[in-house]
């Protein structure tokens, strides 16, 4: 297997604190990789850097074998790197259907075309089917429950047919049924060829779903291995208990 995403020596400081500290790891194509670590260990910051939302102080990144010189969120997204947020971010004032269409990664030429073309509606319709959201298609996204919003955000970033999806705590704050639903969608999409990098605090879910697991502590990678290996790694136990 080859690395779909590779980060080298990422560092990001906020004033006095070093959120990400000389961090390097890779995500293999076809995997569901977990990125875990105690609160404040820099997982979200690493996501922000990899998706171009934040500029790193130093370090480099390769995606699909190409060095990304200046990570730009829009360009990365259109080239196959999607992400969701720890606090689901959807567009509340447009419909569920339009939330999907707006995230389909259309070119600037399409701006002048119809708001929702037949092809858009067909594509979004399939996604709604897959995620069992069809009955909510015409609701404003603001009318959804928190769990439904997380699901919608996940579905919407799949609209651009990404190669790699970064999920930041996809199951935090959602009910157990929704956790199962989320897990099923991740598996199905992974079988269809999408690679995942998932930040997750639910260790049972990580054990069931992910391999390998990467552990961050104070901004640096301290362990990488199968879920069982990581679970028995004394350094990892230390990081979780000692902090």
């Amino acid at each position, binding site marked *: 297997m080859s690395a779909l995403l590779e980060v080298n020596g990422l560092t990001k400081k906020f004033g006095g604190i070093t959120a990400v500290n000389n961090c390097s790891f890779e995500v293999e194509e076809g995997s569901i990789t977990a990125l875990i670590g105690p609160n404040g260990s820099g997982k979200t910051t690493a996501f922000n850097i990899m998706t171009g*939302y934040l500029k790193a102080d130093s370090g480099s990144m390769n995606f699909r074998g190409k060095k990304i010189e200046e990570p730009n969120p*829009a360009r990365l997204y259109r080239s196959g790197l999607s992400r969701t947020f720890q606090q689901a*971010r959807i*567009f509340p*004032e447009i419909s569920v259907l339009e939330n999907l269409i707006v995230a389909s990664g259309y070119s600037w030429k399409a*701006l002048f075309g119809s*708001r929702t073309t037949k092809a858009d509606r067909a594509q979004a319709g399939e996604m709604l089917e897959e995620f069992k959201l069809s009955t909510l298609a015409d609701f404003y996204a603001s009318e959804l429950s928190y769990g439904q919003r997380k699901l919608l955000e996940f579905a919407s970033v799949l609209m651009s047919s990404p190669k790699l999806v970064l999920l930041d705590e996809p199951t935090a704050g959602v009910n157990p049924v929704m956790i199962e639903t989320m897990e099923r969608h991740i598996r199905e999409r992974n079988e269809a060829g999408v690679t995942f990098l998932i930040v997750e605090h639910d260790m049972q879910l990580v054990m069931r779903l992910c391999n390998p697991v990467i552990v961050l502590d104070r901004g640096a990678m301290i362990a990488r291995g199968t879920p069982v290996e990581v679970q028995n790694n004394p350094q990892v136990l230390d990081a979780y208990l000692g902090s």
Partner: protein
Amino acid sequence: MSKAGIIRASAFFGILALLPLGVKPQWVINLLIFTLMYAALASSWNLIGGYAGYPSLGHAAFFGFGAYFIGIIFENSVGNGYNPFFILPLVGLCAAIISIPIGFIAMKTRKDVFAIVTITLLFMVQTLAYNWRGLTGGAQGKGVAVPPFDPATFGRPYYYVMLILLLTAMSISMYFRRSKIGLSLAAVRADEDKAHGVGIQVTTVKIIAFALSVAIAAMVGAVWGYYEGFIYPQFAVDPLITIGMVLMTFLGGRATLWGPVLGAFILVPAQQYFSYEFGATQFYLLAYAAIFLVIMLVLPRGILPTLTDRIRLKAKIVAEANK
């Protein structure tokens, strides 16, 4: 556009097109011209302030630009009187071109900071208008040649041109709503970083909205300058004009097709009435602000969005009950 929408728009513009033929008093035509002017300004402001969520306070700078454009070219002669109207597309084009670098820089800031940056632009242009005497006549103002229109129907050409500008602004507004420009702008308004993160060309759509918005404002300013016949810096580049279009859009409802028009049709006559009641004192401004405050407290999102929400809610309750 839905069938009801087409009927509504046709009726609205049909009635307005016929109105001057029936209504004779000069003051009524004058009031209507100003109402149409503000309706067009508010509709144009809505493109950037409503759909994109960028509350520009600098639009009066472009309004003034349009006014001086006409003043400078047509200082000595307007021929048969219609020439300035034919120049309008050029005025709009020039404003749009100038606005691209300005918008590009100003829209690196957001919300309140953007408002401050754009109002700074307004004061810069006002200062320029006061001091570039060779071009603008400074505080003495700039006269436009008087057109050979029949005094009995003097206002009519201005009225119809304002009506066409309103139609243009509303057509662009409609186009935004029906194209991916509007969809993209809705995303930008809600969460610009996220919009950028799902591949939307945020800078492109913002610039399109800003350029079209100020192009209309400049053309309206051009017609205003011509209609007034004399262009003074304090009136041509006036914060009150900016405030007017913002208030009307807020009142009627941001990011709606009819909201800004509704706002103008309420506030312009109200303002005229108050300024008549309270004479030359500035008290009318207080009354004007008071109406606005009351309505915003009762209907914080503006008239139309609040109403459509209520209707939607009712429909939902009815649908639930029928299940």
